[in-house]
């Protein structure tokens, strides 16, 4: 399905509505259905495209890589939408934050299959999926806050490491990260990037 000019205008309007609410401290707007509706329209496409991408790949790590690659690409392609989704709505207030958490929790099913792929399986902690989601989210939000949204795809290997690692352990995750980077990863001194 292609994206029409009308689709793009509507998405831009939704993103602007969310950002306006952030500027105006629009708690009442959030609590109304208008803003959460706009947010849902912005995020449903991201989730659908991620789900489609997660169908590609023979094994779970490849499916996660494909989904993450697609998601980072979508966010990088529309920085104003990325900011609205990841930074503006959660900044509005408690109701906005709950909408945002709902969006993040929607990624849990993609990750849950990693339990079957992990050697630890039943021993993995109950919240391992949210650990992985929080790891990716924190890096993405920091990049958006720093105005580097368009560079998000370059972080695919590093984010992939942090998403796979809770399931597979650091050694296997590092191997898969290297596969994704096609070369030595960006590394840093202790504390760098925090």
């Amino acid at each position, binding site marked *: 399905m292609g994206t029409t000019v009308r689709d793009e205008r509507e998405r831009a309007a939704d993103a602007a509505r969310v950002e306006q609410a952030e500027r105006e401290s629009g*708690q009442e707007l959030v609590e109304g259905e208008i803003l959460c509706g706009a947010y849902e329209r912005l995020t449903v496409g991201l989730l659908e495209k991620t789900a489609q991408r997660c169908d590609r790949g023979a094994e779970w790590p490849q499916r996660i890589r494909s989904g993450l690659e697609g998601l980072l690409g979508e966010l990088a392609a529309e920085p104003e939408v990325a900011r609205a989704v990841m930074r503006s709505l*959660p900044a509005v207030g408690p109701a906005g*934050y709950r909408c945002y958490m709902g969006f993040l929790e929607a990624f849990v099913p993609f990750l849950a299959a990693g339990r079957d792929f992990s050697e630890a399986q039943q021993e993995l*902690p109950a919240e*391992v999926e*949210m*650990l992985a989601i*929080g790891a990716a*989210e924190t890096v993405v939000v920091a990049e958006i806050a720093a105005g580097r949204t368009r560079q998000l795809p370059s972080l695919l290997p590093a984010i992939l490491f942090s998403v796979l690692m809770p399931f597979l352990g650091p050694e296997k995750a590092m191997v898969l990260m290297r596969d994704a980077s096609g070369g030595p990863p960006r590394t840093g001194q202790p504390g760098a*990037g925090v």
Partner: protein
Amino acid sequence: MTATCAERGYAETTVEEVVGRAGVPPAAFAENFDNKEACALAAIDLIVAESIGVASAAYSPDLSESESILRGVMAILELWAARPSFADMACVQPRQMPQRGYDAYALGAQAMALIADRLQAYSLTAPLPETAVRATLGGIAMLIRREVASGRAERLPRLLPDIIYGALAPFLRQEEVLRYTQLARELQLEGG
């Protein structure tokens, strides 16, 4: 400040509400803070100091370093469970504050990263990706933020095994991380 922010969010909180709730005259607020943001940042500093205080009190030379750390993390979770507005102010509100608040959050994360840096020395795969420490802290913060945002702060101590797993997972072999996670479960049971 923390209680009002937890109920209404930083953006909707006003100095008038904070002053009224604290039962102090507006002049007293003005003497101590330039504005709402300065008050919020001071509140975060206070929470960090109290959290470090309870974690330090959990340390004992009679315990192994790992057990002291487990008990320290548990003490922070218990503090935040008893004072949900602390957890909210430390983990949720900075995302709702202007850039300076966000930066303060990042500075707080940097302080936490010093601990993580010590663990880097044990890393099997060093050097880790440059975002790995930030991501590790983000995963842990996510668990806390979700409980707090859902009004379930009293459940924070239950997260101890998950938090220990998340904190150690990038640095140690998975079987070793699972061993510490099991120790955290036992400590949890011991604490009831």
